[in-house]
């Protein structure tokens, strides 16, 4: 007879992190494509506007800003869905953590340089301030915890695959 996975705090944190981060990634990607407006503007206009926000961080070249602006929204939606599905979780959890680490580093750099820019996180005019840094830091912590716990749980044999003890 199959038995359910044992309940432990690591699994709870993994589930909560997956739901929270997947929700945020899907919403962020969708917001960048629609600019949070109804009716939504043409895709090119929305991505062009996001390109301006990416370039305002003064990190990437024009071509790199354009590449990020045209791929990140779709990547966010895809990664969010993959995180929800749970297939190859270790791979996608690691990738999402690296992406959030990149966001956090960019936000901290812009904040420490005193750049008066919009965050661009959810395509709405949202000035980058101390709260943005705290929020991104909290998300990074959650993503790191999730990834570490996913790897720790993966080492243990899953109860469904374990040799039944008679």
């Amino acid at each position: 007879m199959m038995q359910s996975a044992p309940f432990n705090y690591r699994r709870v944190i993994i589930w909560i992190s997956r739901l929270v981060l997947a929700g945020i990634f899907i919403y962020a990607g969708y917001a960048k494509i629609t600019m949070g407006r109804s009716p939504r503007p043409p895709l090119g206009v929305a991505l062009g506007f996001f390109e301006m926000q990416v370039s305002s961080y003064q990190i990437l070249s024009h071509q790199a800003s354009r590449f990020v602006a045209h791929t990140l929204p779709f990547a966010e939606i895809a990664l969010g869905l993959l995180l929800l599905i749970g297939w190859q979780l270790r791979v996608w959890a690691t990738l999402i953590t690296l992406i959030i680490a990149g966001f956090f580093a960019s936000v901290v750099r812009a904040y420490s340089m005193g750049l008066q820019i919009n965050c661009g996180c959810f395509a709405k005019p949202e000035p980058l301030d101390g709260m943005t840094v705290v929020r991104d830091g909290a998300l990074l912590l959650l993503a790191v915890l999730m990834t570490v716990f996913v790897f720790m749980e993966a080492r243990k044999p899953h109860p469904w695959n374990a040799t039944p003890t008679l």
Partner: protein
Amino acid sequence: MIPRLRLVLASVLTLAAFGMLLLAAPPEQKSAQTKTSAAKSTATPKPADVPAVSTATITVNGVTDIDPTKAFGSKSAAVVVEIFSDFQCPACKQLFTNTTQRVMENYVNTGKIYLVHRDFPLPMHAYSRVAASYSRAAAHIGKCEPVELALFQNQEKWEANGDIKGTVAAVLSPAEMKKVQAIVDAKTLEPLIEKDKQLGQTFPVTQTPTTVFHAKGATYPYAGTLSYEVMKDFLDQLVAQK
């Protein structure tokens, strides 16, 4: 002895009468002489010396309160771009010199967009309001571009010594400068600067430069400076909208 006493009494009475006359005179009469001398020293132009300027504004593609002397391009352009800037802000200088001028060449002069220069002098800058007044006055005698360019290019100089008048005079003929000075002194165009500020607060403009793009009834405000290449990508998308 008696005649001398009479003379003294008569003198005292005359002086007293003169003093009472002075006291009884209306205040306007008393300060008239002071006023005249003040007017001479400040050399305020008489209303007749101030060139006739219009404070009328226009509406283009739904964008209201546009001072036509500070706007460029075809009024039938599908895209209207407003740039709220402060002459003393370094980021505004960067936007103007690196981006706006190339946008003027490639998008405004080709009729693709209608560009509106809005004044948004920040209270933290000591001279930006004065610079905005001179720029506005110059725009009303058809000299907007050279004066804006001079103000931005020499920003560090006049920021240090406050010599905005000298900076503007360097790119105008004496006759033009006389007209500009008369308009600035008359403060005729101040309401237009105030109108720009009030309009900016509705978006809201929280920093300069802020660029507001209008196309197909939608508004896209963007705060901060922009490279020409990045703004070009966005403008191409706006212009290409069917």
